[in-house]
């Protein structure tokens, strides 16, 4: 009974601390929302709005038609003529164009004669991903055009292997269905960390932590009193972000909401644990800030947020097991898009649970140890 009274006092105090100060209230809501909205637009590996240079030395119909087809494609919004050879070089060098098409003067003549006619596509290797995709777009246009030329000539090519591709879970490969759930996870993690990482060190600097230690509160009560409010705030924020994902971005949700909440709870608990641990081992707020950074940076890179984990060297991949968000990325995308089973959720939940238990007990232990 008295334990509950004490705990309640602690929890209410934490909420007030976060909520009463206008600045910290804004910091809690505005940045995650802005980031979700801006970054979901920014983070895409799609390539659109491509600027393309064309150096056409051929006056014939075929080259003209090819260029018209390229101009007609929705990706190539900025197609311009290169009037001389040097311009090919300079427009690639200066990133005026992502790619340049170079057509020789005998292009149409060769086609008419039925001989292979080369088209040169020059790509900017400084943008390796984008240039591969652009080459793909151009290749597709060329192939379609080829088929039509053949058809016009009365040749009906036969297909040997017909690749029928189906995309599961995200039929149109909408990038945003991938980005938004990842961002929800990432931003919830950042919040859980910022709420906790400085909470103990700030009390230490202000001297209020001593006040707690001489009070009847037990270390585990202080730990609970810090964990519960942080969890409530983080879960609320995640819910808000998820609501935006579903309503504003219309990300499909096919899995079980209950499973998502259970795993999200454990994911947030793991991060709250990390935050409290960082806080409990630092003397000053500056140290906690640095500590939080040292945790967040590898997390961003190793979680598969920007580039897939599969692409990492094999020796590095096991390290990602220790990053809670790696597991949650699998779960959140799995539940949003794929309806994965409870067993599959559990497979990625227990490592987070383990991290949560380790960090929380370490933090609680540090509260006590600081009496030394």
């Amino acid at each position, binding site marked *: *009974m*008295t334990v509950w*009274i*004490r705990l*309640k*006092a*602690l929890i*209410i*105090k934490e909420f*007030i*601390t976060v909520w*009463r*100060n206008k600045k910290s209230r804004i910091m809690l809501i505005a940045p995650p929302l802005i980031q979700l909205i801006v970054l979901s637009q920014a983070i895409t590996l799609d390539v659109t709005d491509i600027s393309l240079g064309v150096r056409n030395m051929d006056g014939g119909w075929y080259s003209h038609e090819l260029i018209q087809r390229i101009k007609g494609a929705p990706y190539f919004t900025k197609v311009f003529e290169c009037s001389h050879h040097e311009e090919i070089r300079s427009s690639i060098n200066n990133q005026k164009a992502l790619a340049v098409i170079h057509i020789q003067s005998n292009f149409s003549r060769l086609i008419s004669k039925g001989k292979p006619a080369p088209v040169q596509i020059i790509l900017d290797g400084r943008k390796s991903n984008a240039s591969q995709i652009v080459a793909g777009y151009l290749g597709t246009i060329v192939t379609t055009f080829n088929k039509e030329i053949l058809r016009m000539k009365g040749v009906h090519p036969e297909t040997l292997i017909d690749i029928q591709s189906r995309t599961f879970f995200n039929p149109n490969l909408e990038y945003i269905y991938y980005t938004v759930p990842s961002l929800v996870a990432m931003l919830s993690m950042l919040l859980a960390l910022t709420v906790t990482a400085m909470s103990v060190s700030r009390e230490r600097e*202000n*001297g*209020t932590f*001593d*006040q*707690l*230690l*001489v*009070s*009847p*509160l*037990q270390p585990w009560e202080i730990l609970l009193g810090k964990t519960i409010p942080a969890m409530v705030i983080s879960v609320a924020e995640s819910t808000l972000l998820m609501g935006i994902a579903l309503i504003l971005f219309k990300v499909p949700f096919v899995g079980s909401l209950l499973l998502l909440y259970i795993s999200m709870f454990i994911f947030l608990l793991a991060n709250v644990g990390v935050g409290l641990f960082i806080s409990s081992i630092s003397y000053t707020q500056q140290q906690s800030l640095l500590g939080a950074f040292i945790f967040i940076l590898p997390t961003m890179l190793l979680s598969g947020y920007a580039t897939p984990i599969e692409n990492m060297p094999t020796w590095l991949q096991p390290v990602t097991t220790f990053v809670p968000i790696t597991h949650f990325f699998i779960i959140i995308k799995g539940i949003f898009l794929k309806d994965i089973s409870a067993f599959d959720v559990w497979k990625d939940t227990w490592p987070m649970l383990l991290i949560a238990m380790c960090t929380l007990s370490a933090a609680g232990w540090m509260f006590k140890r600081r*009496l*030394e």
Partner: protein
Amino acid sequence: MTLKSAIHLTNVSKTFKGMTEPALNKVTASLEKGIIIGLVGPDGAGKTTLMRLMTGLLLPTTGHITVLGIRTDSPRIHDIAGYMPQKFGLYEDLTVIENLTLYADLAQLEEKAKEETIDRMFTFTALRPFKNRLAGKLSGGMKQKLGLACALLSQPQVLFLDEPSVGVDPVSRRELWKMVQELADKGMTIVWATSYLDEADKCHQVLLLNEGKLLFNGPPQTLTDTLKGRVFRVKTTFEERRKLLRALLNSPLMTDSLIQGNTVRCVLKSPLKEEVKGWEPIAPRFEDAFVDILGGTAKGDSVLVRDFPAKKKIKWPLIKAEHLTKNFGDFTAANDISFSINQGEIFGLLGPNGAGKSTIFRMLCGLLKPTKGEAFVAGFNLQQAPSQARSRIGYMAQKFALYKDLSVEQNLNFFAGVYGLNGPHRTQRIELMIHLFELDPFLKQNAGLLPLGYAQRLALACAIMHEPDVLFLDEPTSGVDPLTRREFWTHINGMVSKGVTVMVTTHFLEEAEYCDRIALIYQGVSIASGTPDDLKKKVTTPTLPNPTLEDAFITLIEQRAFL
């Protein structure tokens, strides 16, 4: 403008953004050249604001200030003025010599002059042995001297010192004063802001501020003299002194009363018409005048006394230290400290900065684990104590560890909850605290924005709300003005009369007079203990027949240091 005046304040007002009341209100004064000028006033009177205005770090909203003919909005002000802010302005991660070199270069001293000046500063401050020590590792007194040296390196014509003696022990305070006196003798003008009024007594000119207004400007003696014939010493016994103090404070004739050993020092509202037996007239001090001009002290009965339940009588000591020793690495911060404190006693831990007071204090309330020995509070070892045991102590720290982002009411609610108060009892206790400490008008205000005096009341309220048996006070009145300090002790005395046991650390020796017993800690060892009068007796000599507690303190420390 006379040649004699160094600083002219003409109708100076300063209103901060978002505040309706001006922090300084139409202050006009001229400050004489080549003397020490004291700047005094209760907390929040505008002392620091005035200091910052005079050094050009703030510009007045209206009016203007000239320092030696230079207006403070000119950058040239910094070529002639030296300034030591409240936190001394030292880089704690630089060594003593590096700090000095930095400020010498900033003052653009020539290479040779620089060496000479720094050398002189070393002699002046006696810091030469600590030349290569990090400033952060210096004791409070040494930091203060170094801060002074840094401010002096530019060889300023005017020197501004903002509360240089807060948190500094009496020995260092005395040394600092001597140093500043020397400077004044050489013709430097010094403005010294302080809440220690014995320092103001020694100034040549005093500016007394209250609520942004200048109440008095002149030699302190002028103000002190108005109290001639109104100050008396009343003899009493050790046991009766607190009762007498209360009675005197409650008398409508009284402006101020203070315990001094086995006597009570009192200031009357008007001179006595005839002699009273046992009332020995004594010379007034500036502090008496200060209290008088600000309307006198509060009543002697703490409202606490009425409502605070009396504690059950306990025969055995409530606080007991047995051979407490604490080592940090190979440094011994406390060495074999033993004492016991009985119910209803006020026990003071005194000592210079870094002597080990805080270490002992923290071991007793369970914040530090002793290397050797044991500490018991109310019969429990707080290290392993169950939370019920800890609910019997109250703790109030130096910096008033309140939650600054929480309102006064939320702070009270929080501490009530943490100590397990519940239901109607809790509501009643909180209301009582609000009533007792007159916190009503501030209930919704953030604790961080409270005036110092009220912050202190709130901290005390939070510490005693659960009616603890034992109260730990760590420098509870550091940097607080005399009026607030007196009120604070009225409450403490009230609680002690109900059987609460108090342990206190302090730098302020007047405050130590309230203690029943004192332990003087030096270099981790208890070098003397006893009642305040016991300690004074130890140093009484024919040349010093009536030593103050401060005299006793300094003498005892010096004797030990020469051993």
